[in-house]
């Protein structure tokens, strides 16, 4: 941190260059440094840190204080000048605080205009040249990058103003985007020299992305570069401007299991031609309260499989996760989660949730695995055309590992590929009701279409209850009794 303080002091006090040299040699970070022996090259002496450059520029003119005659640095375009000031920091922090986020640390991301990389490159070539005259070599990664230097200066300033430490792993991101339209064309010569580095532009974005420019700079030969770009670079008229200051919190994941007690509720909102076909949905009823409590921008609902509008989910319910995007509130105790769960449960009788808890992003993988691998059990109310007696359905109890060939059901064929799926019904038990009705409990492989197994779907699911019992059969009611996935962990509430 010594160097940072020193750099900062320098910017404010405008010390002369010999002093700076001495300090630089004594400073601790960065680990990679060079010894600058020759400093009489005027504006060619660059990039050990941009600060050095500024001294020279100012001294070449008159020794007047920075704020009156400070010209725009031709390497950093003002980033290390204007944007290390307390005013700037205060302005950004005002933005951050007014956004009302809950955070215990922050990570600062800065986006610099790509032409800065070009200018840094030019500066490096010049210093390398001078070093070469002394018989010293200077590799590009011996140089401290502008972005790094900027962050060294600005982190403690932000830290102090926000009252929390800077942490690379923080979930709370403060991002500032700079632009310098005046020099955007600096990069253009690279596209002519190395067109293969540049991909066609997407929508309104420029072809000259930072990554593409850096790639081209790595490839371009020194002679070619110096042919097209002045070393040292031209001095611009204006400073960089801040285009965007944005705060985002990483997404938070909430998991649980839901029961569905309505036969008139879709999983996701059912809207056709802008009109809602059915009121509400499973995901909205669960997410509504979470969105409010976590103060998130949006959510993504995901579950281990799903059921039709007219099917109930009983038993322990179906596992689900909700990704809350850019939550403003992130700290929740187990008690508070319990309270949230109760809130959700008391606000609707169509769904109920249990085991509501915070989980990691990896958790979603667990849940989706379950969708394909785990068994489900169902209870179906079946009608038969022919009149039946108890004996007629007894054989179903003995059927084990029944293999079905199911063509894509007609009811989903408009949005699914046409295929034949082999699925297994592991066990069944039947309960006689009357001459035309019985209840069937089934344990099946994941992905089995139960309704089609009962009514046959025009004979496209074989075998089916109708073919097994030599009659026409139909399904009147279906309930999911269990989804055999042991995740998320059960909580004792």
């Amino acid at each position, binding site marked *: 941190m010594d160097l940072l303080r020193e750099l900062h002091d320098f910017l404010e006090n405008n010390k002369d260059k010999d002093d700076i040299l001495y300090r630089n040699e004594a400073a601790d970070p960065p680990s990679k440094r060079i010894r600058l022996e020759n400093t009489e090259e005027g504006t060619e002496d660059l990039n050990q840190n941009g600060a050095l450059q500024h001294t020279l520029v100012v001294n070449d003119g008159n020794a007047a204080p920075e704020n009156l005659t400070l010209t725009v640095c031709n390497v950093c375009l003002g980033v290390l000048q204007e944007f290390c000031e307390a005013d700037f920091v205060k302005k950004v922090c005002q933005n951050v605080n007014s956004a009302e986020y809950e955070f215990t640390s922050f990570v600062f991301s800065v986006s610099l205009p790509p032409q800065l990389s070009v200018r840094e490159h030019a500066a490096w070539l010049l210093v390398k040249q001078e070093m070469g005259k002394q018989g010293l070599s200077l590799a590009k990664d011996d140089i401290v990058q502008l972005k790094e230097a900027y962050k060294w200066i600005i982190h403690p300033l932000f830290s102090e103003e926000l009252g929390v430490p800077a942490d690379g792993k923080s979930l709370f991101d403060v991002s500032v985007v700079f632009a310098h339209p005046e020099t955007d064309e600096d990069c253009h010569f690279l596209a002519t020299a190395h067109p293969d580095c540049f991909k066609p532009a997407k929508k309104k974005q420029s072809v000259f992305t930072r990554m593409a420019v850096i790639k081209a700079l790595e490839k371009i030969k020194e002679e070619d570069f110096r042919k097209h770009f002045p070393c040292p670079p031209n001095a611009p008229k204006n400073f960089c401007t801040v285009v965007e200051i944005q705060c985002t919190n990483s997404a938070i994941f909430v998991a649980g299991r839901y029961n569905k007690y309505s036969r008139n509720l879709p999983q996701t909102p059912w809207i056709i031609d802008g009109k809602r076909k059915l009121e509400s949905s499973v995901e909205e009823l669960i997410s509504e309260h979470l969105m409010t409590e976590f103060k998130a921008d949006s959510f993504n609902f995901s579950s281990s499989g799903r059921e039709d509008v007219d099917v109930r989910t009983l038993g322990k319910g179906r596992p689900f996760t909700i990704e809350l995007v850019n939550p403003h509130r992130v700290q929740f105790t187990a008690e508070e989660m319990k309270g949230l769960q109760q809130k959700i449960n008391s606000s609707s009788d169509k769904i109920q949730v249990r085991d509501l808890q915070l989980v990691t992003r990896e958790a979603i993988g667990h849940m989706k695995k379950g969708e394909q691998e785990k068994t489900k059990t169902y209870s179906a109310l079946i009608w038969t055309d022919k009149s039946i007696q108890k004996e007629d359905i007894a054989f179903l109890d003995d059927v084990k590992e029944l293999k079905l060939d199911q063509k894509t059901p007609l*009811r989903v*064929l408009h949005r699914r590929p046409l295929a034949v799926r082999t699925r297994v019904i592991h066990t069944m038990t039947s309960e006689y009701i009357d001459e035309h009705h019985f209840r069937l409990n089934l344990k099946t492989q994941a992905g089995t279409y139960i309704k089609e197994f009962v009514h046959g779907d025009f004979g496209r699911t074989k075998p089916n209850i109708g073919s097994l019992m030599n009659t026409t059969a139909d399904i009147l009611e279906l309930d999911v009794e269990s989804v055999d996935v042991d995740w998320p962990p059960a909580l004792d509430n």
Partner: protein
Amino acid sequence: MAAVPGVTERYFTRWYKTDVGQPREDYCILQHSNRICVITLAESHPVLQKGKTIKNINYQVTAHCSRLQNKVSGKSKRGAQFLTALAPLCRISCSDGEEYTIHSCIRGRLMEVNENLLNNPAILQEKPSTEGYIAVVLPKFEESKIVTQGLLTREEYEGILLHRLNSSS
């Protein structure tokens, strides 16, 4: 009779087309709410009349085109044979020497023909509206509303049957 409406009644709308190609060759098109259509023979079609025995059902409709070769891939159903309303789906030969060409009746992509009819042609006569279906056709999305223009409702169909009965007496 079912106490509650069956699968067909719950999810499909019945449309009819009469005298397709030949007099009295009538069809019933079952249109699902998701716009998929199942082509079936109407109960008045000659093949479904008493005394007719089906000898053979042939899906090779031209020298170069067999409906059995229809291969559909992906969600957008690429590779499907495209059908116009009069496109032939198959030819049915009966034991009395009569031959009937079965037509698509609607424009769209052919999803599948009912291969069960090859092994068990009788099912066409036993369960013409369910297991004995002829083919499944997916109309173009843009045409899904107009595809049933020119088709008859159940009432209109029954009206035609009545008319035939009266004019023959």
